[in-house]
């Protein structure tokens, strides 16, 4: 076994930082989209809108039952067919959001349903509609319970973004793979890659702990 090629790791730094920026950008937009869609779907899941609830259940069933990699390919190849010519960057965002929104919907639904039934009954008893009950009573109380699983979901999303290397998005993982192909130093760069992800996710976990404390 040869020595550890530090030179390759230093050489890769500017490329991998660029990849990091792309990973963060994609993850940010995907998370934003997934949160918006997922929260709305979660709210609908506990409402009395039967038709929409059935559609959401089917969607969640699909997202949970198929690999993220397959979903990425599906979105990447399906979007142009239905008339959406997106760059691979935005295809990636949509694919990740498509996956994540399903899980966020479940997190929000579970969070809302974990609130004591007496809270809803009290809200109904003063004449609130189910929409008002969810918005003013259940959602504020479930925010703190939702934060930890939501953080997990963000972490999963960031890690899943590495799969986007398969649709030629030069995010963090692909930026490392390109250097590996150029200099053939797989161990060094995959080790470095692991560290990059660890740093990103550690920072995120800290931020989430802070948010959780603030919501206490």
């Amino acid at each position, binding site marked *: 076994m040869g020595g550890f090629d530090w030179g390759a790791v230093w050489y890769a730094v500017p490329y991998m930082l660029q990849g990091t920026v792309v990973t963060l950008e994609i993850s940010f937009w995907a998370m934003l989209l997934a949160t918006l869609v997922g929260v709305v779907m979660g709210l609908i899941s506990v409402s009395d809108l039967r038709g929409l609830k059935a559609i959401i259940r089917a969607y969640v069933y699909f997202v949970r039952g198929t690999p993220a990699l397959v979903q990425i390919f599906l979105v990447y190849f399906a979007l142009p067919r239905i008339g959406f010519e997106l760059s691979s960057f935005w295809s990636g965002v949509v694919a990740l959001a498509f996956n994540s929104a399903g899980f966020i919907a479940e997190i929000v639904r579970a969070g809302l349903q974990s609130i004591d039934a007496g809270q809803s009954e009290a809200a109904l008893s*003063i004449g609130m509609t*189910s929409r008002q009950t969810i918005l003013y009573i259940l959602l504020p109380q479930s925010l703190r319970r939702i934060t930890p699983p939501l953080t997990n979901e963000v972490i999963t999303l960031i890690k899943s973004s590495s799969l986007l290397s398969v649709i030629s998005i030069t995010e963090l993982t692909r930026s490392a793979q390109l250097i590996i192909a150029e200099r053939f130093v797989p161990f060094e760069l995959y080790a470095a890659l692991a560290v990059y992800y660890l740093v990103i996710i550690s920072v995120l976990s800290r931020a989430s702990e802070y948010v959780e404390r603030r919501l206490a």
Partner: protein
Amino acid sequence: MSAEPLLRIRGLSKVFGDIPVVDRVDCDVMPGEIVMVIGPSGAGKSTLLRCVNRIEIPSSGDVVVDGVNMAGEHRNGRMVADSPAATARKRRHIGMVFQRFNLFAHLSALDNVAIGPRRVLGMKPADARALAAEQLARVQLSAHMAKRPVQLSGGQQQRVAIARAMAMRPVLMLFDEPTSALDPELVGEVLAVIRALAEDGMTMLVVTHEMQFAREVGTRVLFMDAGRVLEDAPPRSFFANPQQARAKEFLRRVHAMPA
């Protein structure tokens, strides 16, 4: 005083599975009446109460509050069921107080009372808060308005819950075992508040196990067992001379009648 009943219950049943928890109940409550609903646990008292404001949807029968059918409207001789929004509107002026208080855990005492006037009645925030402060003063909680439910004793929480219901200007108040979850030394303060409402002429239906309170404050007692109303009498005659064997047995068991 009008001769029309404020609350009219006709043939009301609620069936869970095959069990009729409330079984063909008829009852008229006149304005100002204070109806104490008593009976053994599982008799259907709470379910009856919850059917009045449709927190529980009755299996059959009619509930009419202040001339308004709680289930829907008659149009061209046909009954058209209410939308959820219409049901919500009809619930506004029927106050309910729960055994376990059910204060909104994330809101201060003041906001617990203000949120109904604010969000349901559409009052301006400042007006809703002023109304809430006034209602909390009536239940002697002015000093605790900023506190969250967890910072209040059970008795204080239940008084906030009463203020929350009263802030909606109810025509009818439903109390579902309002003191059953309280430490014994806190029961008195809650009963005193309910007694004061009764003296102000509020029409109310009270499910309770406090027999002395039922006797002193009630204008009428309904005794329920197995979903049926077995007796409907003024408290004095009910407690002195219950007609049904089940009622006698119940009163003996709760020590409200000599053995």
